[in-house]
């Protein structure tokens, strides 16, 4: 038996890593006395499978975990998936909120392998609507957007452009603690996970790269971790959806909501975030 949970990660807890969140789930599931299925061998671990890893520092409205249960003990205990979100919410740390739990079929692909794209909303500071609009237009018009990123200790150049499925400027509430000038803009994006996932900070790097003038401006705000001295600065990022695209249809992994692949992806991301 396998149960898929959808949960959010918001607030201070966004500074924990994907691995940390996995351990929080393990402890919460044990505290809930759920009859988890364990791996074989000398070092048995509960069988948990998360969706695409969320970068440390990013928030999310759309995290998923599959939990395998021991079928015999689960039947004995009479597990009611509908009751689980309430139970686990009280056992997980503040900032993790379980939305829904549904039994799912065991499939040969893991959640991580099935997810094809993610929707994001971002808040950038140190830039206004027009400036960001020009950067977005430049990126969308570009044939290739090379960015360097580290992989297994080596710097590699990847083309970002094919991974950007949608990108648009949006409104955002200014955070004057971060940027007293109030130059704060929102950005919505849908980013493909193939061949490799793109992190919001890498998207920002691509935006700066295609509009050279900005990259060399002196630092007068916070730096993003990938490129010190660059502005605009990525202040907040929130994953609003993970999508599984199959036969031209995008599907939300748990509730099965279907959105045609041709629909306005960016607008949809904004709706989720609001």
């Amino acid at each position: 038996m396998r149960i898929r949970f959808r949960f959010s990660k918001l607030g201070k807890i966004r500074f924990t890593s994907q691995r940390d969140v996995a351990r929080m789930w393990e402890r919460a599931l044990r505290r809930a006395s759920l009859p988890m299925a364990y791996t074989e061998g000398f070092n048995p671990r509960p069988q948990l499978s998360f969706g695409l890893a969320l970068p440390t520092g990013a928030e999310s409205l759309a995290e998923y975990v599959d939990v395998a249960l021991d079928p015999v003990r689960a039947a004995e205990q009479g597990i009611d998936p509908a009751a689980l979100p309430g139970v686990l919410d009280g056992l997980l740390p503040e900032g993790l909120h379980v939305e829904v739990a549904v039994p799912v079929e065991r499939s040969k692909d893991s959640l991580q392998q099935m997810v094809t794209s993610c929707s994001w909303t971002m808040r950038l500071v140190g830039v206004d609507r027009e400036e960001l609009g020009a950067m977005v237009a430049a990126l969308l018009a570009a044939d290739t957007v090379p960015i360097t990123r580290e992989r297994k200790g080596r710097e590699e150049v990847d083309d970002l452009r094919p991974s950007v499925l949608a990108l648009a400027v949006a409104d955002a509430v200014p955070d004057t603690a971060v940027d007293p000038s109030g130059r704060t803009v929102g950005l919505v994006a849908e980013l493909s996970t193939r061949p490799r996932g793109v992190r919001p900070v890498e998207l920002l790097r691509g935006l700066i790269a295609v509009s050279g003038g900005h990259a060399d401006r002196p630092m007068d705000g916070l730096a993003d971790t990938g490129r010190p001295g660059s502005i605009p600065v990525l202040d907040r990022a929130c994953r609003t959806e993970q999508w599984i695209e199959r036969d031209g249809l995008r599907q939300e992994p748990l509730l099965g909501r279907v959105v045609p692949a041709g629909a306005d992806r960016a607008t949809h991301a904004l709706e989720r975030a609001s």
Partner: protein
Amino acid sequence: MESLWPQIEPLLAQVTKPARYIGGELGARRVEHRPEVVSWLLVYPDTYEVGLPNQGLQILYEILNERPDAAAERSYAPWVDMEASMRAAGVPLFSVEGHHPAAAFDVIAFNLSAELVYTNVLNLIDLAGVPVRAADRTDEHPVVVAGGHCAFNPEPLADFVDCFVLGDGEEVVGEVNDVLAEFRCGPMPVAGGRGALLAALSRVPGVYVPSCYDVAYDDDGRLSGVTPRTPGTPERVEKRTITDLGAWPYPRQQLVPLIEVVHDRLNVELFRGCTRGCRFCQAGMITRPVRERPAEQVRTMVAAGLERTGYDEVALTSLSSADYSGIEDTVTGIIDDPSCSGQVSVSLPSLRVDAFTVGTAAQIQRVRRTGLTFAPEGGTWRMRQVINKLIREEDLYAAVDAAFSQGWKRVKLYFLIGLPTETDEDTLGIVALAKQCVAIGKRYHSSVTVTASVGGFVPKVQTPFQWFGQNTIEELTRKVHLLRDAARPVRGLTIRWHDPKATAAEGIVSRGDRRMGAVIEQVWRNGGTFQEWSEFFDLDLWTDALAAQGMTLEDAVYRHRTEDEVLPWDHLSAGLHRDFLWQDWKDALAEYGLPDCRWTPCYDCGACTGYGVEHVVASAVPPAGGSQGTGQDLSTGGQVPVRFLSTAPSGAAPAPGPGGSAVALTTEGRS
């Protein structure tokens, strides 16, 4: 108090492991600071991952927060990247719960577990925006307190810390809070201000206030005495000892961090104190006598702790957990508990070296098998008699044989080099022992790993070796090379060693007098923080600072102390008579081992008699396999001459029945 979170939050995007600074642990308290409540900031002067699991700090955190007149939060040393960001943004040291500025607290209290963190202590006081030197603080500043094992030689930090607390903190923390409540929160300002407050603190038993003492030196510049100068301040500060661990079932709400930390598991303390009498071991000397937690309480704490935390591992902690009376019943009880459904692993952090213990380990670690670790400490029987670690070669080989035969393929052995009277034969004995262990392993597995981990010995205060002149860096390095060369041809044997330079720096601080404070301050001012971390440790900082103060490694570290010399910690007591320690030092030099005093007549070290406490143990029968120091047959354990006290010592509950909770026992032949 004002929360600094809005200023802290933007910094976190730029630093490594930002979750170190967000709090949010299970068990963290949301405290409310009010003027009539004494506010404490409990600080561990190393990283969050190292400091969070510290049980001493967690115990005080709970005890303080249970009081209506106290409120405690926690803080840890920010890593170097975060510290740089904080200083650049003007953000001071803050608490992880409410992100309150450290200087707004009434008390900043440090846990001192190791000497090389002292420069971090200075750095954190400075980062709090509080004057680093105690003499420069005014009534407006927090009181800086320190406790923990290193407080038994507080002199190197005497210029920076307002008061030290010696021994068990459970009771005395409340008494300190009472004094602070009177002074900080009383209806009107108390005459005398900070000076009067510190003098009042100096009258609390177990509290040492350096500014209430005069220090005198003789014409040669040697320390000649430390004497009280304020009324009621004791000439000699005695450590505090709680008599009944059962009365203090803490932590009740162990903190469960959001990120991975060291010792990331449930910890339940089995007992405090140790009577094996290893002469190099400061922890064993200063925590006497033995006080066991009642077995029933251990079971309750384990069951409730696992259920509350969701951990799948519990460590039964103490200085020698296999010595706990009824250890077998305790661990089988945990393993067989149906609610654990076979998925809980139990670890005994300090295994005794014998086959019996391995049998227990095989049973309790059935969930997870990593390596097994033993600590013979010395390479030859002669050496082990000197240090009073009375493990026979047969004991070690039987233990290792048991480990390999029961499926382990990795064994780790801990040794010390630079011990008193050590010869090259003793040093090379380490390789001989380890080599034999590899050979034993080969009988069971085609490929085995034996790691001999070698540390340089640093003499510690309040031990028989406090008079010993530490080995030089060159001598330790030579011994490391001897070992490395001898081990090279042995397949399956790995030698690991601690940097002899770091050993020397630890020696600079561990036995220094008050003048060493200037050295510590200079190392800190020159950027020497996180000296426990090899990537930041720099011996040159230490030797330069020594030279600037007209001191040498020769005098501070390598010199043997003499019997008549005034030691910088002579005015402080861990309960051990100075003449007992001196006799034990002479016995060491005579290669004379002293068996465990729980099952042999009293040596009158002073720890029991001085505090009116007996060893509190749950069973009159020494553990099977208790050959080490008991003279027992290895295979059986068995009866030794003991009698029960007619009345239990204060605080200890009488035994409800056989195998039940703690009873006091004393040995025959003791008056």
